């Protein structure tokens, strides 16, 4: 079976050399990861390394296991890791409950954000931000400081003020829900942001707002993993690396130009190449 490791693919990439010169840290290291859901294997032998300052994109057709990878990294309990390891700054990520991962800076932007009737956005965010502050040894925000902080972040990602007065995602439109994910990301200032199909269901204006938000939050100490079906989002969020997930395996990794090839040729050529390869 063919499997591609990132290093063999990118050792010749010029961007990598630039990064190396800045002594970037290895943030996330996924080694030979296999994941099942209810006994059915979804991911096979995934290898991926993300360093600080990088933007990675994972593309792939529907049902290829993109969301499974994202939710496994965020720690959803019904994802059974059957093989392999994931380290986050050298620590075993798979042993941590989801809240610990979040407090250490991992953020998952949900493909389908969950509605929580009766829990106000303000209360939800206040609890989340203060739990994270507690974890980092900071005192909780006072009510006034929190509101000020929230206002800044709302402006940063152009989030509609009215929405924070409502229950979490309740009655939000599809676009509002996705913008809310980016707003939460701005509030929590993650180290590793995993955006699962954040572009799906967005019109072009909303897409721009979301992408702008992501770009504004990007810096040399954090990293972004963008999961998407379409190339469109990658016009706005320029990835350093593009990986193709197909049938539970990463079958191709390359620079940003891979996204354009996929856009042009669709996933069919991957499918063909892969089925030939799988026969080897």
């Amino acid at each position, binding site marked *: 079976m063919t499997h591609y490791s990132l290093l063999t693919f990118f050792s010749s990439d010029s961007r990598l050399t630039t990064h190396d010169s800045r002594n970037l840290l290895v943030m996330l290291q996924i080694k030979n990861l296999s994941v099942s859901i209810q006994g059915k294997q979804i991911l096979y032998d995934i290898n991926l390394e993300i360093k600080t300052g990088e933007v990675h994109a994972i593309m792939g057709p529907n049902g290829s296991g993109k969301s499974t990878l994202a939710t496994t990294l*965020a*720690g*959803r*309990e019904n994802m059974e890791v059957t093989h392999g390891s994931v380290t986050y700054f050298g620590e075993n990520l798979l042993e941590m*409950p*989801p*809240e610990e*991962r*979040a*407090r250490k800076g991992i*953020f*998952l932007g*949900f493909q389908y*954000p*969950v*509605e*929580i*009737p*009766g*829990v106000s956005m303000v*209360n*939800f*965010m206040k*609890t*989340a931000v203060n*739990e*994270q502050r507690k*974890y980092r040894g900071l005192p909780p925000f006072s009510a006034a400081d929190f509101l000020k902080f929230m206002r800044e972040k709302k402006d940063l990602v152009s989030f509609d003020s009215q929405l924070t007065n409502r*229950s*979490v995602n309740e009655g939000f439109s599809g676009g509002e829900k996705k913008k809310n994910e980016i707003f*939460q990301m701005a509030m*929590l200032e993650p180290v590793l942001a995993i955006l699962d199909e954040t572009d799906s269901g967005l019109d072009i204006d909303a897409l721009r707002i979301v992408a702008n938000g992501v770009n504004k939050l990007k810096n040399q100490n954090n990293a972004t993993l963008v999961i998407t079906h379409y190339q469109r989002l990658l016009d706005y969020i320029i990835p350093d690396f593009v990986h193709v997930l197909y049938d539970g395996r990463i079958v191709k990794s390359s620079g940003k130009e891979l996204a354009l090839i996929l856009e042009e040729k669709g996933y069919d050529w991957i499918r063909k190449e892969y089925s030939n390869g799988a026969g080897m």
Partner: protein
Amino acid sequence: MSNNFIDLFYQNETTLKRMSRGFPADLREEAIEVFRSTGFPDKKNEQYRYTRIEQLFEPAYNMQFSPSNINLNVRDLFTCDVPDLNARLEIVLNGFYFSQGQELKKLPQGIITGSLSKALETCPDIVKPYFSRVADHRKDSLVALNTAFAMDGLFIYIPKGTGFDNPLQVVHLPMTGLDTLLQYRNLIIMEEDTHAEIIICDHTLSPFRFLTNSVTEIYAGPNARLQYVRVQNEHLNSNLITNLYIHQEAGSRVTTNTITLHGGIIRNNTHVTLNAPHCENNTFGLFFADKNQHVDNYVRIDHAQSDCNSMQLFKGILDDQATGAFNGHILVRPEGQKTNAYQLSKNILLSDQAKMNTKPQLEIYADDVRCSHGATTGQLDDSAMFYMRSRGISFKEARLLILYAFAFEVIDKISIKPLKERINHLVDKRLRGELSRCNNCSVNCTEVHQGK
């Protein structure tokens, strides 16, 4: 079992007569004979399918036929759960109005509060037209049993065009040195164009086994406005059967809200009769049950006339081996055209052993009505839990936020602000497992007696 109570009645008939002042003796006899013919409701009785009533009466209980002679200052001993309420406080101690020398208080505007038996004796003209008219002992054996044995309780009379400007708080306190059965009787008369906010608190002040079988009758005259909130917060060995009967006249608006925070086995019966057009009734409830607790809410709304609205909303959170039941009965009589009647029961089970039974019962004899019912019983929403935890919120906090949000829909219906805030606080404590005994109670009811 029921024979024991019939024997007890006839053995003590003279005492009952002697002690009961204005309580009509013939009514007692009629009631005990009704009870003889019906007995305790058993499992075959659809209304009581989920609560074994007879079992509750099996242990030996003491019954008290005269007020407790307690010199302690109960008002000092009992610290109110609701500070800043600015309410008028009335206490019913072991089923008797705690008078401290004044059995009937005449308040400004002609409002009367005090002892029901005293009121039956001294102002029968006011009391008799309503007493035992709202609750019918011929139709319910527990009401019959109460009618046979009731000695006293709280009486409130609000004459036409008046009302309480501040909430009235009534605290029911059992405080004895023996296992005790209490069967008190409350009567609230609200004449035309009156208003009141009444808070009923059920507490326990001693660590004994208690069983209460109370009857409360409320008459809401034309355009009367009543908000009636019950807070039940007792120990595990305190069992309650409450029978609330409400009679509403034209244009009246009554909202009841029953918050069951803690207790043993609890059965709340709420019977509402909408006797004239344009009445509005809201019957809300929220309960928490864990360990071996059992909470059963039964509601019956009788739309006897046209153009009335009724809404029932009940929510429950059950953990451990707790069990619960909700049975909501809507009756729309042929005269009840243009009725709007809704009913919703929502419950969360936190353990695999907890159990909830819900039963809607719609009986409609009119053709131009809007009625609906809904019931859900489920577990904590996994996706919501994961969503919150993925933001760094701990499992415990996430669970609290979700449960609290679930409960808040009912708490939010309380319009008495300090009470709402206090109940918010108590619910939060309850959800954190810090409310295993009556809050602020100075008596240390240990868990020892609560075993069984």
